[in-house]
């Protein structure tokens, strides 16, 4: 249902942006303050909680034994799921993952997979047996840009994830364990287009007013995932300059890991 109030606010934000200001007073290329905390859920093998402005995301990692996928028989299995918890926003509903949460999970997953942030080969055990790497993204509080917050939480959880042992066919999660082998660190940076203006790290008000969205996930020197989301479009030159901005802003976020 189209919320009239949302429409009214949207117009307000669009006017504000057209006049060179963001509702939060930030510069157009400015990210909100972010914090990262690791190991917030000790029962999980790895976990992290991220605040990005008022957006809050919790990522949890669990490992278990499973059978490799037929098309990747010598690797472990990464499985990423996102839950837009009902407590995070008045409009989030219960039920199976909707398109929004599926896109969120897949975009975060793509960055991790492309950059080998989790070394899937190292999760292989023997023929027909490998580690399942379950990554769950729990959205706790939605104030815009869930992708960047979730990706940051995911990466942080990966970096502190403990690697369980296999002893006599049983999974052992206690005792001294090393960390899951990880590769590059990837960081997602999302930009929203409102009218002809592009803003970095759109908050919820800006998200509602934006036409198009571009998420660029980077390692220190490579682009590892791009997702253009929502309707609208970007010019070729805009994409090029946003890649530069992605590397720049990615540095700042990466420093929090």
């Amino acid at each position, binding site marked *: 249902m189209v919320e009239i109030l949302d429409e009214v606010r949207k117009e307000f934000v669009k006017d504000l942006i057209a006049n060179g200001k963001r509702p939060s007073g930030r510069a157009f290329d400015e990210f909100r303050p972010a914090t990262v905390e*690791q*190991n917030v859920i000790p*029962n999980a093998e790895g976990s992290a909680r991220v605040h990005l402005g*008022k957006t809050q995301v919790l990522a949890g*990692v669990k490992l278990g034994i499973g059978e490799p996928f037929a098309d990747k028989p010598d690797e472990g299995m990464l499985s990423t799921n996102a839950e837009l918890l009902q407590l995070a926003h008045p409009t989030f509903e219960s039920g199976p993952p909707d398109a929004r949460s599926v896109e969120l999970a897949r975009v975060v997953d793509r960055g991790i997979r492309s950059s080998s942030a989790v070394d899937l080969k190292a999760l292989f055990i023997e023929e027909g047996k490998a580690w399942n790497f379950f990554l769950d993204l729990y959205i706790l509080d*939605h104030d815009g840009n869930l992708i960047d917050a979730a990706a940051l939480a995911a990466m942080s959880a990966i970096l502190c994830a403990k690697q369980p042992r296999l002893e006599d066919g049983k999974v052992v999660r206690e005792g001294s364990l090393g960390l899951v082998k990880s590769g590059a660190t990837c960081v997602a940076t999302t930009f929203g287009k409102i009218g002809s203006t592009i803003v970095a790290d759109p908050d919820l008000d800006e998200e509602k007013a934006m036409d198009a969205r571009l998420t660029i996930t980077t390692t220190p020197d490579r682009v590892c995932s791009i997702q253009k989301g929502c309707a609208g479009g970007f010019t070729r030159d805009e994409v090029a300059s946003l890649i530069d901005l992605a590397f720049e802003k990615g540095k700042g976020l990466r420093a929090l890991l």
Partner: protein
Amino acid sequence: MDKPKLIVDGKRMDGRAMDELRPILIKAGVLNKADGSAYIEWGKNKVLAAVYGPRECIPKHDENPYKALVRCTYRMSPFCSLEEHGRRGPSRRGTEISKLISNVFDTVVMAEHFPKTAIDIFVEVLQADGGTRVAGLTAAAVALADAGIPMKDVVCGVAAGKIDGEIAVDFGKYEDNFGESDIPVAVSPRTGELLLLQMDGMLTKDEVMRSVDMAISASMKVHELQVAALKERYAEKEKSGALGGEGDNGGGSLPSDAGGGRQGMALQPVPGDAGESAR
């Protein structure tokens, strides 16, 4: 697996006495978007509760022309347990617990004040270690108060029962799994009325009543912590004078557990001295 000894030399696995609660920390107002919220750490349990409402009742055909529909959804995260990755999605156990908690609040919330609306309570178990339903409803009560929903009491819950032949209160996961009987209870502290009561196992009447009494007694201490959490939320605002706008309240949110210690929080286990929800 061999059944572990739950009681050794009169003490439990974690050193507690039979009537001793695990350390409990409660914080009110931890989320931005929700109308009310609360976070509880109870032993190793970590549970987040949030409330939206009173708000338009959806689906409309569920709406009651005389009072608000009070509904709770209780879920566990797939990474909440020490063992395997859990299921993603609702479970039958979760559905039952959701219903029971809904019933608790349907009794204490003054729902007649808000006909045709819905008051939605969400309980998310982030980490589980036995007793999540009572931890969840304890947090939910604080979240409801935080949302300004009129109630007759701030309800809380505690579980008691029998482990290794002894009546004891507040079971951790092992005690839950290997104990003989588990009796979760929710109490309205003001009246002593039992709003949630379940039991499994095989007990004599005397054992049941002793468990219930122990739970009621322990729940008074839990209630003190709930009240302290609510008062603390507003005392902060009073003292600092300008504790930011509505939005800032959620910024601090969930205390972290990094490195085994709780940052800036002192927890003292019960008894006598109820574990304070310290800063």
